[in-house]
C-alpha cells in the first residue's frame, strides 16, 4: 500500500469525489492555481478541474459559507474552505444559523449537503489569530456533523464520506498533521461517521483525544508500555456523530479515563466527553476523569510560550499516572 502524507491523502479524497460527481466543487480563498490553498491541500486541483470547480474567492468568509449553503440546497455539492479555523468567527451566522438549522426550521423541505473544511491548532508560532482549536463551538450546534481526522488513512475516507453526506459537515484538520504519513489505499474506501479508531489496546487507562494529541497519546502509550502500564488510545474521528460505544466499553474495561485535546480547557469537547462518561459509566469509574488541555488563554506567539500552551507527552503521561 502506498505511504502518503495526510495532505496527499486528503487531496486524493477530494479529487476522487470531484471525478465521481460533477456537482462537487471547491471554493475558498487562494484554493486555486496561484496557491493551492494556504496548506497546499488543493494544489493541482484547479489545473485538473478548472477555475470554475476550484474557485478562488474574495476574503468574505460569511459569504463563502453562505454561498456554499445556497449552492448546496439547489443541487451542488460544495466543499468550502475557510483558510484558518480562527476565521470561522466571521462565518458563524451562515454556518450555525443557516447551514445547521435550515433543514429543521423548514420542516425537512431541504437538506444542506455541504462540507466546510478548515484547520485548527497551534505549533507554528503564528499566534492568537491563527492557532485556535474551536471545534467545541460546533459540537454545541445541533444540525452539524463534525469530522476530526488525525491520520492520513482517516482523512481520505472521511472526506469522501463527508462529501456524500446530505447534511452539513464541518471538516476540521490540524496544521501539524498535514505532513504525517501513513499507508493509504489507492482504491476507493469510505469511513463511516461515528466510528472511533482504537490505536492501541490496553487495560489500565483509556486515553481519548483528537488531532495531534492522538499522535502524542500513542507515543505515550508506547512509552508507558515499557513501564508496564497498558494504555488504550481512542481517536473518535468524528465528534458528531460520536462513537460513545467504543469509548464506554473501553472505560468499562479500564475504569480510568484521560481526555486530551489541544483546546483551551474550559468548555472544550473534553468537558462533554467527561460529562457523558460519568453519566453513563459512573459505576465503572475507579478514578476521576482527567482532562489534559491547553490553559485558558489565547494562543501565545513565542516558542517558549506556545510549547507550554500545547499539551505535551509529559503532561499526558503524568495524567495517566495520576489516576493509576
Amino acid at each position, binding site marked *: 500500500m502506498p505511504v502518503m502524507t495526510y495532505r496527499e491523502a486528503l487531496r486524493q479524497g477530494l479529487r476522487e469525489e470531484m471525478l465521481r460527481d460533477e*456537482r462537487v*466543487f471547491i471554493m475558498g480563498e487562494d484554493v486555486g492555481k496561484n496557491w493551492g490553498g494556504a496548506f497546499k491541500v488543493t494544489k493541482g486541483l484547479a489545473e485538473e478541474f478548472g477555475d*470554475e470547480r476550484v474557485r478562488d*474567492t*474574495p476574503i*468574505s468568509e*460569511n*459569504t*463563502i*459559507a*453562505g*454561498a*456554499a*449553503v*445556497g*449552492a*448546496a*440546497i*439547489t*443541487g*451542488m455539492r*460544495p466543499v468550502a474552505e475557510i483558510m484558518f479555523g480562527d476565521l470561522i468567527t466571521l462565518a458563524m*451566522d*451562515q454556518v450555525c*444559523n*443557516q447551514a445547521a438549522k*435550515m*433543514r*429543521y*426550521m*423548514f*420542516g*425537512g*423541505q*431541504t*437538506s444542506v449537503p455541504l462540507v466546510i473544511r478548515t484547520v485548527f491548532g497551534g505549533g507554528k508560532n503564528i499566534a492568537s489569530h491563527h492557532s485556535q482549536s474551536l471545534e467545541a463551538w460546533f459540537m454545541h450546534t*445541533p*444540525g452539524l*456533523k463534525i469530522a476530526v481526522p488525525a491520520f492520513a488513512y482517516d482523512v481520505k475516507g472521511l472526506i469522501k464520506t463527508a462529501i456524500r*453526506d*446530505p*447534511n452539513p459537515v464541518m471538516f476540521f484538520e490540524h496544521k501539524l498533521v498535514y505532513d504525517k504519513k501513513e499507508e493509504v489505499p489507492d482504491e476507493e474506501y469510505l469511513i463511516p*461517521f461515528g466510528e472511533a479508531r482504537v490505536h492501541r489496546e490496553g487495560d489500565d487507562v483509556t486515553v481519548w483525544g483528537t488531532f495531534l494529541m492522538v499522535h502524542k497519546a500513542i507515543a505515550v502509550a508506547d512509552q508507558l508500555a515499557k513501564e508496564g502500564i497498558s494504555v488504550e488510545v481512542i481517536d473518535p474521528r468524528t465528534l458528531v456523530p460520536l462513537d460513545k460505544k467504543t469509548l464506554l466499553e473501553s472505560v468499562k474495561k479500564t475504569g480510568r479515563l484521560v481526555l486530551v485535546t489541544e483546546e483551551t480547557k474550559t468548555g472544550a469537547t473534553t468537558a462533554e466527553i467527561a460529562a457523558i462518561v460519568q453519566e453513563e459509566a459512573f459505576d465503572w469509574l475507579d478514578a476521576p476523569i482527567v482532562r489534559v488541555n491547553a490553559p485558558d488563554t489565547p494562543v501565545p506567539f513565542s516558542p517558549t510560550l506556545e510549547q507550554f500552551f500545547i499539551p505535551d507527552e509529559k503532561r499526558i503521561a503524568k495524567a495517566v499516572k495520576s489516576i493509576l
Partner: protein
Amino acid sequence: MAVEPKMTVDKKKLVDLYTRTLKIRLFESKVWDLFGQNLIPGTLHLYLGQEAVAAGVTAALKKTDWIQSTHRGHGHVIAKGADMKRAMAELLGKRTGSCKGKGGSMHITQFDVGVLGATGVVASGLPIAVGAALSCKMRGTKDVVACFFGDGASNNGTFGESLNMSAIWKLPVIWVVENNLYAMGTPIAWTCPSENIAQRADGYCIPNKIVDGNNALEVYEATVEAVERARNGGGPTLIECKTYRMKGHSRFDPAKYRPKEEAEYWLSRDPVEIIRKIAIEAGALTEKEADKIRKKLEKEVEEAAKFAIESEYPAPEEALEDVFMEVDA
C-alpha cells in the same frame, strides 16, 4: 400616479400583477385578523404596504427561478406561488404548515415553488442567494435568483460581500432592496449617509435602478430588464424599491415614531389601488372583473384560514425530527 403602462406589458400581465398584489393584501389582512384573535403565536412582520414589490418581482420570474426571502416574508412566498393553506397553517404553528410548524412567520418557506428560504437574521439571505445563483450558473439551468432584503439589511456586512461576489462572477441575481424607510424604529436617515441605497451598487459596478415600490408595474418592468440581463449572462442588477409599511415593524409596534405627513403620504399610495387603477385604465380589467378576482381570492384566503385553524398542532416529540437527513446506507 398616472403611470402609463409601456406597450411591452400585455394586458394579461396587468391582471397578473393586480392579482398578486391583492392576494398578498388579503392574505396579510387575514393574518392580522387571526393574530388579533390570538391564533398566531410569536411575533409577525407584516408585508402590508409593500405588496407591489413582491408582486412585481415574482411576476417577472419563472416557476423554476428562485427567490430568497427575509423576516418579512409572507408576501414573498405567497407571490411566488406558495400554497396559502400551508403558509397560513405554518403561521399558526400547525403540523400541516409548510415547515411542519417548526419555522413560523420568520421562516415561512415553500421550497418546491422556488423559495430558498425565509430567514430571521437580517441580511443573511444575500450569501445564500449568491450560492443559489452560482449553482444555477454552474448547472447551466438559466434560472435566476431574486433576493429580497430591507434598507436596514444594506448596512450589514454581507451586503457588500454578496454584491461583490455576484459582480465578479457575473451571477444571475436580482438584488431587490425594499426600502421602506425604516429598520424597526430607526429611520434610514440615521444609518445611511445617502438618500438611496442604490448608489452602493455602483461601487461594485452593478447596474441599478430606483423604482416606486408601491407600483407593481414599475417594479415588474425593472425586474424584467434585470432578469433578462441575468439570464443572458450579464450578471446582477440591483433594484431599489421605495415603499412603506402600512403597520408597525412587528406585532406590537404602533410605529409612533413616523412623522404624520410622511405616513399620510405613503398610506395614501395604496399598492393595490395603484395597480388596480393602472390595469383598469389600460383596459386590462373592468371594475367588475377586478371585484370578481377579489371575491375569488377572498374565498381562497378564507379557506386557507379555515384549514389552518382546523389543523392540528404537531405532537411534542416531533420537535426531535428533521435535524439531520438520513444517510442512505
